[in-house]
C-alpha cells in the first residue's frame, strides 16, 4: 500500500461529495448540477435558503480550498464548525453529513503535522458509530491507514472487528463491503503466507522445521481462500486479490482451480473490461506451456483493449509463427497498432520487427495488407514519425533506431522521403554496408514506386 494509493482512496471520494452537494440525481443516472439551487427554493416553497445551510456550505468550500492548498491547520479550524452539520435539522443532510465529515476529517488527520495514529484512531472510531451505514467503509479505510503506517496487526484486528459487525436488515446492501473487508483480511493473510514462503525457501526440504512450516502455511492459505473467494465472484476489478489467490493455488498445485479463477475473471461478461485479467491469464497459460492458439486468443482480446501494451510484441511473434493467413495479417496490424502510440515511438524492437516483417510481407507479395494498414496512417505518420526533425534526433540518440525507422520510411514513403534521405546521407563507417543493403532493399520493395 503506497502513500499515493491511500491518499487517492481518500481524495477521490471527496470529489464525489461535491457532486452530491451540487447536483441532483434525476433517477436515470443523469446529473443536472444547475438544478440544485433552483430545487432548493422549490422545496422550501420559495423561501430563501436558511443561513445555517448557507454558512455551512460556505464552510465546506473553505475546507476544500484549504485542503487544496495543503493548509491543514486552517482546514482543521473550519472543520470544527463544519461538524455541526451532523446536527442539521434537514434529515437528509444530517444523514449524508457523516460520510462527508469522515472524508474531509481523515484527509486532514492524515496530513496534519500535529496528528498521529492515535488521533486518527479516535476519529475513525467515533465516526464509525455515527450512523451505522458508514461503519464498514470507515473500518476499511481505517485499516488501510493503519497498513500505510505499517501497523499490520492493528489493521488485521480492525478488519476482523468489521467482519463480525452485525447490522440487521441493512446487511444486504452492504454485502460487497463485507466481501471487501474479508478480502482485505485475506490479503493480509497472503502477506504473512508470502513471508513464510520466503523463509521456507531457506530451509532444507528434509528438515523437520520445513514440514511444520509448510503445515502452518497450508492452514494459512485455506483461510485466505475462504476470505478472498467470495469477493472475486462479485463483478469488479480485484487485481491484487486475484493475483495473490492464484499464486497460492498454484503453489499448492491446484492448476485447475487457478485456471478457473483466471478464466472467469477474464471472460465473465458481468465483469468490467480489465486488461490485467487477460494479462494474468496469459502469464498463467504461458507458465503452463499452453498451445499457441490458446495464447493467441487471450492476447487478441488484450490487443483490442490495449493495442499499445508491451505484450503486443510477444503477440506479434506468436502470430508470425502461426500458419494461419489471418494471424499473419494480424501480426502486421499489431505492429502498426503499437507504433500508433506516442509512448512507443522510440521502441527499437517494434521498429525492427516492423522493418523485418514488412520486408517479409512484401517478399511474400502481401502488398495489399501493407497498403491496407498504411492507408489509414499515411496522412499522419510522416509528420508523426518521419519528419526531418525526428531523423536528426533519432540519429543523434540512437543510430540503430534511426536505421530501422529509415528502412520502414523508405518502404512506405519511397526513397525520396526526408527521413530516409537524411539517414542515407550520414556517412557512418560501421553502418555503411548495412545502409547500402537497405538502399537496395528499399528500391526493390518500396510500395511507392516512382518508376511506375
Amino acid at each position, binding site marked *: 500500500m503506497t502513500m499515493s494509493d491511500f491518499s487517492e482512496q481518500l481524495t477521490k471520494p471527496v470529489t464525489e461529495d461535491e457532486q452530491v452537494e451540487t447536483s441532483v440525481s434525476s433517477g436515470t443516472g443523469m446529473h443536472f448540477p444547475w438544478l440544485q439551487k433552483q430545487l432548493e427554493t422549490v422545496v422550501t416553497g420559495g423561501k430563501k435558503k*436558511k*443561513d*445555517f*445551510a448557507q*454558512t*455551512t456550505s*460556505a*464552510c465546506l*468550500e*473553505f475546507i476544500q480550498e484549504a485542503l487544496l492548498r495543503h493548509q*491543514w*491547520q486552517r482546514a*482543521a*479550524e*473550519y*472543520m*470544527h*464548525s463544519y*461538524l*455541526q452539520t*451532523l*446536527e442539521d*435539522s434537514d434529515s437528509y443532510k444530517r444523514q449524508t453529513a457523516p460520510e462527508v*465529515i469522515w472524508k474531509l*476529517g481523515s484527509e*486532514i*488527520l492524515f496530513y*496534519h503535522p*500535529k*496528528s498521529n495514529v492515535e*488521533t486518527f484512531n*479516535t*476519529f475513525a472510531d*467515533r465516526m464509525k*458509530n*455515527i*450512523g*451505522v451505514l458508514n461503519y464498514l467503509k470507515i473500518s476499511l479505510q481505517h485499516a488501510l491507514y493503519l497498513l500505510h503506517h505499517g501497523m499490520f496487526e492493528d489493521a488485521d484486528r480492525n478488519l476482523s472487528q468489521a467482519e463480525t459487525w*452485525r*447490522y*440487521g*436488515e*441493512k446487511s444486504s446492501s452492504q454485502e460487497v463491503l463485507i466481501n471487501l473487508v474479508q478480502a482485505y483480511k485475506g490479503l493480509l493473510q497472503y502477506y504473512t503466507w508470502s513471508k513464510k514462503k520466503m523463509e521456507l525457501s531457506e530451509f532444507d526440504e528434509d528438515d523437520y522445521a520445513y514440514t511444520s512450516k509448510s503445515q502452518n502455511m497450508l492452514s494459512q492459505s485455506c483461510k485466505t481462500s475462504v476470505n478472498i473467494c467470495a469477493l472475486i465472484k462479485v463483478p469488479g476489478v480485484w487485481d491484487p486479490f486475484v493475483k495473490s489467490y492464484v499464486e497460492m493455488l498454484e503453489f499448492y498445485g491446484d492448476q485447475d482451480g487457478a485456471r478457473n479463477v483466471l478464466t472467469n475473471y477474464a471472460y465473465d461478461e458481468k465483469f468490467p473490461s480489465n486488461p490485467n485479467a487477460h494479462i494474468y491469464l496469459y502469464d498463467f497459460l504461458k507458465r503452463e506451456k499452453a498451445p499457441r492458439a490458446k495464447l493467441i486468443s487471450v492476447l487478441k482480446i488484450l490487443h483490442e483493449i490495449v493495442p499499445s501494451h508491451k505484450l503486443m510484441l510477444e503477440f506479434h511473434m506468436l502470430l508470425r509463427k502461426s500458419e494461419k493467413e489471418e494471424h499473419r495479417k494480424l501480426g502486421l496490424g499489431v505492429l502498426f497498432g503499437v507504433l500508433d502510440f506516442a509512448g512507443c515511438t522510440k521502441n527499437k524492437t517494434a521498429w525492427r520487427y516492423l522493418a523485418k516483417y514488412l520486408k517479409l510481407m512484401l517478399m511474400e507479395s502481401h502488398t495489399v495488407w501493407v497498403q491496407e494498414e498504411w492507408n489509414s496512417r499515411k496522412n499522419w505518420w510522416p509528420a508523426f514519425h518521419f519528419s526531418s526533425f525526428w531523423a536528426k534526433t533519432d540519429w543523434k540518440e540512437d543510430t540503430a533506431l534511426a536505421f530501422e525507422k529509415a528502412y520502414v520510411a523508405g518502404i512506405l514513403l519511397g526513397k525520396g522521403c526526408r527521413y530516409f534521405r537524411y539517414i542515407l546521407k550520414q556517412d557512418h563507417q560501421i553502418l555503411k554496408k548495412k545502409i547500402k543493403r537497405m538502399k537496395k532493399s528499399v528500391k526493390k520493395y518500396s510500395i511507392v514506386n516512382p518508376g511506375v
Partner: protein
Amino acid sequence: MDLEEAKEFKERCSQCAAVSWGLTDEGKYYCTSCHNVTEKSKEVINSSVIPNTKINTINRGLRKKRKHEKGWDWYVCEGFQYILYHQAEALKNLGVGSELKDEVLHSFWKRYLQKSKQAYCKNPVNTSGRKTKVLKDNLHCSDWASEPELLSGGDTDFALESGAEFQSDAQIPKDFPITKASQSGAASVCSGSLDGVEYSLRKEKGIVKMTVPRTLAFCYLSLLWQRETITLSDLLRFVEEDHIPYINAFERFPEEMKLYGRDKGIFAVESWPDYEEIYKNMIEVATFLDLPRFPEITEDCYLHPNILCMKYLMEVNLPDEMHGLTCQVVKMTGIGEVDFLTFDPIAKMKKTVKYDVQAVAVIVVVLKLLFLLDDNLEWSYSDLAETYNEEHKEDKPQFGFRKWYQVMKKTFDEKKQKWEEARAKYSWKSGKPLYHSHIDKSVAYKRREMVVNLQKQFSALVDSTPVVEKKGPSSFQFNWTEEDINRPCFHEHTLQGLLVKKGQSLKTKNSLYWLSTQKFCKSYCKHVTTYEESNFSLSYQFILNIFSFLLRIKTSILHEEVSLIEKKLFKKKYSESKKNSSRSKKIRRH
C-alpha cells in the same frame, strides 16, 4: 427473549437509530437490528396513566427524576417574554436607558398580550384552568408592573401586576372548550410548552402571531419610541455579532422550561434576521398594537438624516465638507421634516422611514452630484486633485476619488473576507439540543456529545492562540485615523476642486446628473424599482456594494432608496427651474 414485551420501548437505538427492541434475559433492551444492549430495562408500568407513546422504560430509580425532567408547565408567550426580557437586558448593557425595558417594551408587550387575547383580557385564549407556575425569574415582571403605564388605557387590573402570575385562577375559561386542561399529559408529548402544538396550529385572522424575528420588531419599536441612537441595521448587526440574544435565545430559559417537539419550530431559528423582514414585522406589530404617533424625530435626534449622514460620512471615510451638501439635499427633498420622519402607525399606515438606508442614500446622491459616477468624470477629477495636491503640499489636500477608492476597496475587501470567514465558522447549534419527541431525545443528546467530542479533537489541531478576539459592540465598523498609512483618513480633505463660486453661493463643478431609475414600479408589485447591476457604472456599483454591506442590506434596497430621493429631489427642481435657474442641473438620460 420476548419481542412482544419490548414493543412499547420506542426510543431510537443509539447505534443504528432503528426502533426494534428485544428483551435480554436480564430484562434489558437490546436492538434486534444491531444487537446493541441499552442501559434501560423493562419495567412494569401502568399504561393507562401514561399514554403508550411515551417512553415506558425508566429504571426504577429514575422515576422521581422523570418528574423533574418534565419541568414546569409553561406557555409559548412566556417563552417570548423571556427572550424579550433578555434582549432588553442586552440593550441595557449596550447603554440604552433602562426605561426602554421597564416602561416601553413592557407596555408594548402587555398590549400585545392583550390584543392577541393571551392575557389581560376577559377570555384569554390559552387558559388551562391550572395554575401556571410562578417563574422564579418573575422579579422582572413585577418590576415592569410597578412602573407607571406608558401607554394609558383602561387596562389596569391585570394579573401580572397583582402577583406576577401570568394568569390568575379567577380567569377560568368560559368558551374555550377542549384544549388543555384534560390532556396536558398527552400534549406534552409533542411540545414542552403547554400550548406549543395548539400555538403552531393557530391561524386566527387579524392576529399577529409572535415569532422570534418579531421579538426584534418589538425591540426596534421600543428603541424608536425612545429615540435611541441605534438604527435598525445597527440592531441587526448586534444580533449577528451575538451582542443581543436571538439565535438559540431559548438557551436562556430557566432549566425547568423544557423545549421539544413543536417548540422547536417556534423557538429555533436558523437564519440571522433580515432587514426587510424585520422592517415589515415592525410595521405589522405597530399596526396590530394600534400604537399612537411616536415621539417626534427632530433635528437634534440621532435618527434625523443630518446627523445620520454625518455619522455615515465618517464611517465611509468621506470629507466632512460633504455634510453641507447632504444637508442641502435633505432640505430640498423635505426628508428632514418632522412629519415625514415621525412614525405614526395609524396615520401613515404601513409606512415609515428606513432612517439608516435613507441617510446612506443621501450620501450616494451627493456623490453622484459631485462626481457623476459615470466611470469617467470621477477619474478625470481625481487627476486634477492629484496634480493640485502634488503642487500644493502645504495646503489642505483636495479630495480625490481615486485615492479614496483604492483605500476603501482594499479595506472593504478585507473586511468582507473576514466577515464571510466568521460567518462560515459560526456555531449555530445550542448546547441544549432540541428534539422532536422523547423518542429522539437520547439520539439528539448523543449526537451533541459526539459533535462536542469531535470538535475537541479538531480544536486540538489548531494553534492555541485564539485568532478572533471578540469585538465589543460599536456603531462604527471602520476606524480611520491620520496616523495609519494603510488606512489614510479623508475627513479633512476639501472639496475645493469640485465646487465653483457662482455669485454668492457655491455650485458643483459637475453640472450633469443621471437618474438611478427611469421607471418606478406600479403599486401592485411591492418593489419601488429593480436593480440590474450590469446596467450601471462600476463606480456606482462599488459604492452601492460597500454602503449596503455596511448596513447588511441587499444592494437593491439601497438603490431603491436612492431612486426615491432622486424622485423627490428632481420633482422640486423641475418646478423651481422655471423661476430660478441659479443651480440648475441638467438631467442626462443614462
